[in-house]
């Protein structure tokens, strides 16, 4: 597909379980971002990958959150021992990050996580 693809689109889990959310960026985009959209906190930056550089993890809310990006393409966001406050829509975005900065991020439709 032409856009950023995220899966699953919806995930319901029980408190204490681990979840994995997947993001497939636009082909050729070297930068990949995870954001979280929740009612109480709005849109928050979580983590940023650029090429082979070390990721910027400064937005991860706790050590229960981790993310990896394999082969410079697909990324997985993992939340361990989920809590109810983790309920949110997790958004992935990518950008080409080549040449002049355009500021445009291309967002997926998100993965809605509900922790019961």
């Amino acid at each position, binding site marked *: 597909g032409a856009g950023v693809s995220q899966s699953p689109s919806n995930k319901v889990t029980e408190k204490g379980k681990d979840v994995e959310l997947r993001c497939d960026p636009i082909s050729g985009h070297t*930068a990949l971002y995870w*954001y979280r959209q929740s009612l109480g906190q709005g*849109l928050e930056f979580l983590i940023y990958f650029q090429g082979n550089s070390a990721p910027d993890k400064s937005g991860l809310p706790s050590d229960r959150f981790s993310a990896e990006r394999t082969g410079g393409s697909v990324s997985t966001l993992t939340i361990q021992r989920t809590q109810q406050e983790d309920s949110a829509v997790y958004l992935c975005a990518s950008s080409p990050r080549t040449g002049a900065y355009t*500021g445009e991020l291309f967002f997926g*439709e998100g993965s809605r996580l509900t922790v019961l």
Partner: protein
Amino acid sequence: AQSVTQLDSQVPVFEEAPVELRCNYSSSVSVYLFWYVQYPNQGLQLLLKYLSGSTLVESINGFEAEFNKSQTSFHLRKPSVHISDTAEYFCAVSETDSWGKLQFGAGTQVVVTP
């Protein structure tokens, strides 16, 4: 660190009426400014951006925003809205050396009615 304030959480507006969405930011360094839009059941899309140059920027669908450095504002306007403009609008800011690491405002829900 920077912050973004969108003063209105919801703006009801009649079709063909003008609309203005207010955005103020604070930052100790140079920033880039953006408006993103989220239509119902869709992902976020870039509406327009200010990186440098002319302080008035326009989108292809009739929106415009003006960067005002002295007032640290980046308000979004449209002179005549359509039903299809019903969406949530997010103002965002990033430091000039911080590619894609955006600080978003809380969003403004625009509801256009006939």
